[in-house]
């Protein structure tokens, strides 16, 4: 817990639940009759209502992006180093909205919610949600908040895909898109890793076809394993080598299959910890949403064509050691934006941390987002 709330923190925050009763048509063909979205907001919406910044989360993220829920919290929100007074996403200038996406397991309607039709938990019956569906639900959220146009929509990884999709399907509703450590679609290798994660979950004997909660159990091993695989793809070889190397827990080999290398211990800890905090059905859903994302597919597989209607200005950032969504994946998006004649800036940050770098306090990255957002803030003041 923080002894005192740091001065550059948004402080204690309280999530809000917003109920939507207008049915939402989903990509899979099903209709979600009603749903809740949990959000947190930081900063104040100005009189012109033009300083809104929407934060879209990645695979395992949620609405709690900054500040603390109570003084007993061990850690602040997941992007606290970017959000706060004087930080790159400056709460003195912007009204920042962070939500838990549909299908999530942190309060927004998802597999762990009860189905109003049956009164039972959705579990595996919760429809698969796509990035497009998320964007549509976020549009409803914008309407609810009275924000016609976001100053910026910001996201890393899967969050970046949402920002990109917004710019394609709702070009008038954002002025800037910050797409960080992201990709315009998954590669076969990306999908392969997702499939390993899903198989790990679904082959756990406690998965029970996704009805584990009804049967008072949890597929902990499977979800833990899925997280372990995921975690490997978030780190670079260098970062892992630097952190763990071939270090052993004890001095000598024990010639068995227990935990001997530090990296094993770390991965098992990460897996076990995550499996107690996250829902397996949500994990399946999020990985599928990633697999399906491919906005160019509706435009003859031509991403430049997909971007043609976008009106936002773009900032793309990639990290040199990210091999999950490598700089080459950002180049695909940058090139499409160039061909489409859009305003775009692109930064390739030298960072050893791999994909996880997008969450971290890397000076060049922080300064760039700060500098960019400062201009976005100035525009908010100029626009009437």
């Amino acid at each position: 817990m923080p002894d005192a709330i740091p001065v550059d923190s948004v402080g204690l925050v309280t999530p809000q639940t917003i109920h939507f009763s207008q049915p939402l048509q989903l990509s899979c063909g099903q209709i979600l009759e009603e749903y809740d979205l949990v959000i947190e907001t930081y900063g104040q919406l100005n009189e012109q209502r033009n300083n809104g910044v929407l934060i879209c989360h990645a695979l395992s993220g949620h609405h709690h992006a900054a500040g603390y829920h109570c003084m007993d919290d061990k850690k602040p929100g997941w992007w606290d180093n970017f959000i706060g007074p004087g930080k790159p996403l400056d709460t003195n200038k912007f009204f920042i909205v962070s939500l838990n996406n549909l299908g999530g397991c942190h309060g927004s309607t998802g597999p762990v919610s009860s189905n109003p039709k049956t009164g039972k938990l959705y579990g595996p019956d919760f429809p698969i949600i796509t990035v497009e569906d998320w964007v549509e639900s976020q549009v409803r959220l914008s309407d609810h908040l009275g924000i016609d146009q976001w100053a910026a929509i910001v996201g890393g990884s899967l969050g970046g895909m949402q920002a990109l999709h917004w710019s394609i399907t709702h070009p008038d509703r954002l002025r800037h898109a910050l797409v960080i450590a992201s990709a315009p679609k998954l590669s076969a290798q990306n999908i392969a890793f997702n499939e390993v994660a899903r198989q790990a979950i679904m082959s756990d004997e406690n998965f029970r076809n996704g009805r584990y909660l009804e049967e008072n159990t949890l597929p902990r091993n499977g979800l833990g394993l899925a997280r372990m695989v995921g975690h490997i793809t978030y780190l670079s070889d260098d970062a892992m080598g630097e952190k763990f190397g071939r270090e052993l827990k004890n001095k000598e080999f024990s010639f068995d299959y227990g935990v001997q290398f530090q990296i094993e211990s770390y991965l098992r800890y990460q897996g076990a910890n995550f499996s107690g905090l996250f829902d397996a059905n949500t994990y399946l859903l999020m990985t599928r949403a990633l697999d399906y994302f491919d906005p160019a597919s509706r435009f003859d597989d031509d991403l430049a064509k997909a971007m043609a209607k976008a009106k936002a200005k773009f900032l793309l950032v990639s990290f040199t050691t990210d091999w999950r969504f490598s700089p080459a994946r950002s180049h695909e998006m940058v090139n499409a934006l160039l061909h489409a004649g859009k305003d775009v800036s692109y930064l390739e940050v030298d960072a050893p941390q791999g994909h996880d770098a997008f969450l971290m306090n890397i000076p060049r990255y922080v300064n760039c987002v700060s500098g960019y957002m400062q201009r976005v803030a100035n525009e908010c003041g100029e626009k009437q």
Partner: protein
Amino acid sequence: MASRVDLSVISRWIKEDSRILDLACGDGKLLHDLARDKNISGYGMEINPQNIQACIERGVNVLEHNIDQGLGNFTDQSFDTVVMAQALQALQFPHLVLDEMLRVGREGIVTFPNFGHWRCRLHLSTKGRMPVSKFMPYTWYDTPNIHFCTFKDFEDLCRQKKLTILNRLVVDRANKGDWKTRLLPNLMGEVAIYHVTR
């Protein structure tokens, strides 16, 4: 800095409302001013992190990209003018970048320091050493400038490549193209500014 003069010449040569690609765009001032004064649009390319940051703070579109790797990200003839100020001498393959400039742009504007300037010649002939001056402050073994040339050398390259020189201007340290630089450009000029097309 003598290099600022070339920027003001470049600005004069660029048409209103045109689409510009600025290779090694530095802190983005040229693109920023051209957008303000001539309503141009376009992008800068840079590899220096401080310069990229300056561009972002100015609101100039900047792409982190090493131009020695080519301009494969751009389609043929997608810009009115491609500019490259004071970077030719720092490239691995200046002749290939020149080709690329005129592939993606209809016209190119190139500026570079003249190694045939009398100061360089004097330095080399009297001291027998590679010139080091305020304008070229690096030692020969540790310098970004790996391909120095003279105006004559550059014009040879243009002839070889069958490029048309639309305009050229030679300026000296005082940043003027006076009678001396007009009469003896390869001896008196410090910075060359060439406007070329294919």
